[in-house]
């Protein structure tokens, strides 16, 4: 039985916006469009090629939102969720320029939390999204690696930064949620081992070794 994309995203979007929503909340496709529009107006996405890419994806996302029956199979739904996840991540997380002296911490927190909440929802709906690989083409900022290999560094980039202190709990919680999801789905046990290995390797090679070389 196919879910209504609009109904699902309406309930999810309501949780995203919380009690501040006055009227009926827009679906996730509209949220993604608002994110891109906000970033475009603030010149964070100055390159036109990037804008064209996201605009193209948004048209596809909107088309499906208007006609959910376009998604007929589970694979199509995963592919579509991947596209939305890519748009959200590019618009919300990659748009955070930590070196910007006028970076607005509230904007950072709000954009990042929306992206994290949406990713959590998408992974809950289609857990195998974590292992989704593209063909290596069609996404300007994506290679052929599994989605989690592409996504996790974007969160780790923010984790522990002084301008993202408010996000520490949310990022930790999201990465723990990935572990929980992997434990609940046998198809993701390979991901669980790879993810733990990745975190251990990151800890030892990137963080602790770097700290050990610092001289005080």
């Amino acid at each position, binding site marked *: 039985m196919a879910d209504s994309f609009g109904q699902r995203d309406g309930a999810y979007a309501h949780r995203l916006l919380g009690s501040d929503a006055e009227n009926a909340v827009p679906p996730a496709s509209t949220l993604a469009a608002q994110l891109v529009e906000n970033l475009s107006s603030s010149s964070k996405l100055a390159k036109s090629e990037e804008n064209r890419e996201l605009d193209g994806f948004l048209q596809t996302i909107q088309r499906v939102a208007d006609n959910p029956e376009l998604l007929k199979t589970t694979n199509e739904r995963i592919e579509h969720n991947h596209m939305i996840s890519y748009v959200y991540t590019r618009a919300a997380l990659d748009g955070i320029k930590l070196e910007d002296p006028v970076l607005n911490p509230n904007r950072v927190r709000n954009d990042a939390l929306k992206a994290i909440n949406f990713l959590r929802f998408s992974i809950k709906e289609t857990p195998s999204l974590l292992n989704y*690989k593209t063909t*290596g083409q069609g996404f300007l*900022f*994506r*290679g*052929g*690696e599994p989605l989690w*290999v*592409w996504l996790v*560094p*974007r969160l*780790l*980039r923010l*984790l*522990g*930064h*002084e301008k993202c202190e408010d996000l*520490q709990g949310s*990022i*930790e919680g999201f*990465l*723990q949620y990935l*572990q*929980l999801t992997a*434990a*609940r789905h046998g198809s993701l046990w390979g991901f*669980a081992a790879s993810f*733990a290995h990745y*975190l*251990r390797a*990151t*800890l*030892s090679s*990137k*963080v*602790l070794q*770097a*700290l*050990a070389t*610092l001289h*005080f």
Partner: protein
Amino acid sequence: MTRQPSQHAFYSLRYPTQMFRQAVSICTILAYPLISSDSIFEGYSSFSEDLLSLLDAWLDIIQVYRRLSSDSVVPPYARIMDILTSLIHRQNLLTVTTSNSILREKSCVLLALCCSELILKPQMPDGDSSGGLEARKSLCRALILLASAVKGCEATKRFVASKLIHDLSTLSMGKRQVSGDGHSSLDTSPASAETESDLSVRRHSQ
């Protein structure tokens, strides 16, 4: 054919403070399956290997912090102690067996180190502040667990005694042995016993 991750799958860190905080966070994330009460994690394999590497990482973090000697980054000792006490309980390390002796020793050494650091550092929250009360609760839980853990383990008992007895008596008298530059007396004689014990526990695990 295995594809290598694209250039878009890498990130860099510039600031030591972020490196430090991220190390603590990653250790917390790695500990989650080991301390969670969710039965779904009971099927995880290679616990001991994960736990050993995690304990080593915690030890590295504390050692790095002591080298940094920075007031801008303070390890969340109370939080680390809570994770360690949960680990010890959840992994049933209080029950002495041949297979878990190294894990037991190492986790108790680490817990004692954290207790000592929390007691002696000037940043320890005081009085009735919410942070102070939570830190004291964490400390009490850790001390109770250590009191049980040292039974039947002479090496652990000696280490805990050398680290904590003096520090706790200092705390109970309302004094802290803090030198003029703000650092604790851990830099003097107790540190030699600590370092030797750290090395002996590391050798056991190799």
